[in-house]
């Protein structure tokens, strides 16, 4: 009986008040939405406490003020009301709905990006709170997430700026393709070289206390400290066509180091080595030296022990270092601009296009490069997770015991 009464009341209300404000179609849809809202409200009123019902009405009011009042969009309001009545009893979804409303009303130009990020923020904070039931951790997480806003927002924002068709057309650009292949090729080679020399260094640094170790320890981080352009100039002075080494190589081997692949690889090794070496050091630090001692008492030499015990146990961390260092090499621009502008790597090509043609032309290129890097990065991380999961699990269990 009450349902019927309510329906009639709503019908009359819509006929009288909204006839002049809204066109007939919107009015009908809004009427349906309001019916849904009212029915839901009635069932809440019957079952739940008075407080909950007040909250329910208050929510409606907020939506009304924000969407109808501020954003002036009856259709969106209708949609929100339907969603609101549907998700009212699920607090987390309700949170998402209000985040959507807030980003539409207050961050209109970026509403989609803002909604994705804020939703992520809200969802993960909820997860943290669910796990810990601690306001401290949730607050710390919220503080930390602010950094992510700063990092992810530009990337998400500009990823939405180009149509897929433009991206496909850009992908056909042969110069870009060559640059991309150059990038992937050189950064892989430089990572392999760092792996070959950096892992032994990391092992010695962790296992042996020798005089002057501190100096080496600081030297490892030197490339992070030095501005990339300075690194480029230094390398050019050492390996450039006028330097003794460059001249010698050109005369006898007919190889130009600067302005060639070797120059690119040299610059990439220079800037990305700290990442791999540091990760490898951390990884070896987590391997108990007594395990190595145990292996040696069983007859294994130092080399054999390294190969059979230390390296497998540290492999997860080392591989992670490889990914980081590879990614760093891939994204290098500063030193390459000085040492080897050509053959172009993808990041240099991007810069080149930007200088020549401006922002609009470069955007799809930038998006494509981001997608490629991100895809490769995620794939590698996933691969690491799959292959080294066992090892990591055992390593942590071991470290905690």
């Amino acid at each position: 009986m009450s349902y019927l009464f309510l329906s009639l009341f709503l019908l009359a209300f819509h006929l009288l008040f909204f006839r002049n404000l809204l066109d007939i179609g919107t009015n009908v849809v809004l009427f349906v939405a309001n019916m849904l809202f009212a029915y839901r409200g009635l069932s809440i009123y019957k079952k739940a406490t008075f407080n909950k019902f007040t909250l329910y009405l208050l929510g409606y009011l907020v939506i009304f003020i924000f969407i109808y009042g501020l954003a002036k969009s009856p259709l969106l309001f209708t949609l929100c009301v339907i969603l609101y009545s549907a998700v009212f009893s699920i607090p987390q979804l309700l949170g998402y709905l209000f985040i959507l409303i807030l980003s539409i009303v207050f961050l209109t130009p970026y509403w989609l990006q803002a909604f994705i990020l804020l939703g992520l923020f809200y969802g993960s904070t909820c997860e943290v709170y669910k796990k810990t039931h601690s306001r401290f951790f949730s607050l710390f997480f919220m503080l930390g997430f602010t950094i992510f806003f700063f990092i992810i927002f530009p990337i998400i924002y500009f990823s939405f700026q180009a149509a897929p068709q433009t991206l496909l057309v850009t992908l056909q650009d042969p110069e870009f393709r060559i640059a991309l292949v150059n990038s992937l090729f050189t950064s892989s080679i430089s990572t392999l070289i760092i792996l070959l020399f950096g892992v032994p260094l990391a092992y010695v640094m962790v296992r042996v206390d020798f005089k002057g170790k501190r100096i080496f320890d600081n030297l490892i981080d030197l490339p992070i400290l030095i501005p990339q352009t300075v690194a480029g100039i230094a390398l050019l002075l050492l390996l450039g066509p006028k330097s003794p080494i460059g001249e010698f190589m050109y005369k006898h081997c007919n190889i130009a180091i600067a302005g060639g692949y070797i120059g690119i690889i040299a610059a990439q090794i220079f800037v990305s080595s700290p990442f791999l070496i540091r990760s490898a050091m951390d990884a070896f630090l987590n391997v108990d030296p007594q395990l190595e001692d145990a292996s040696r008492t069983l007859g294994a030499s130092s080399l054999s022990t390294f190969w059979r015990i230390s390296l497998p146990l540290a492999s997860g961390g080392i591989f992670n270092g490889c990914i980081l260092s590879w990614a760093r090499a891939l994204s290098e621009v500063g030193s390459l601009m000085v040492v080897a502008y050509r053959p172009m790597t993808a990041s240099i090509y991007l810069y080149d296009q930007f200088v020549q043609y401006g922002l609009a032309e470069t955007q799809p290129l930038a998006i494509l490069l981001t997608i490629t890097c991100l895809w490769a990065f995620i794939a590698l991380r996933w691969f690491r997770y799959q292959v080294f999961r066992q090892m990591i699990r055992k390593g942590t269990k071991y470290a905690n015991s």
Partner: protein
Amino acid sequence: MLILENLSRSWETFSLKNISFQIKKGEYFVLLGPCGAGKTLLLNTIVGIYRPDAGKVFIDRKDMTYLNPEKKRVGYLFQKNMLFPHLSVSANIYYGLRYQRSEEDYIKYIFRLLDISDLFLKKDTLNLSGGEAQKILLARSLVIRPRLLLLDEPLSFLDPASRERALVILKSLNKNLGLTLLHVTHDLKEAEALADHAVVLIDGEIMQNAKLQEIVSQPANSQVRQYLGTNYEH
């Protein structure tokens, strides 16, 4: 079998001073001492993980003072569970066989002695009980036919029930294999259950080398008395 002559070694602020004693072939030798007495440092020096600053280590009448651990063929059970976490049980046990040959029969005999079944060999090294881990560690050191076996508080990570069983196993190794063992412990009761002779090491020095009864009835000095006193309170 094992002869230590005036062995000295300093490590950070601690040092071992003039350690000398002998272990006969086939003996079950117990080294007693409180925590921080330098027991582990001594074992590490004997096995070759650390080089001694002075003194000599003879094993099987050969001077092995400066030999690397992999050349000495001395079994060593660490105080902590030192299973290789990334290897299976069988890979752990057979680890040393790449460097040291052993007969099939001998390995089977060890397995029988330690009650290791084929099913057990296939297990993963995660989620093993303390007793099971200890069995694997023992087997791993035994299959390479060690000249002698050093045990650093081998019962420390076992629960009381498996401690009893481990004591029986250790004694049977000594009896059935004729293996020479150097067992390090801080627990006088454990020592009494294993041997009747012991060396007491306190603060990096050997305080007394005598029969256990004698150590209890006539402690060599106040430090030994104090150590025994705290030991009986437990």
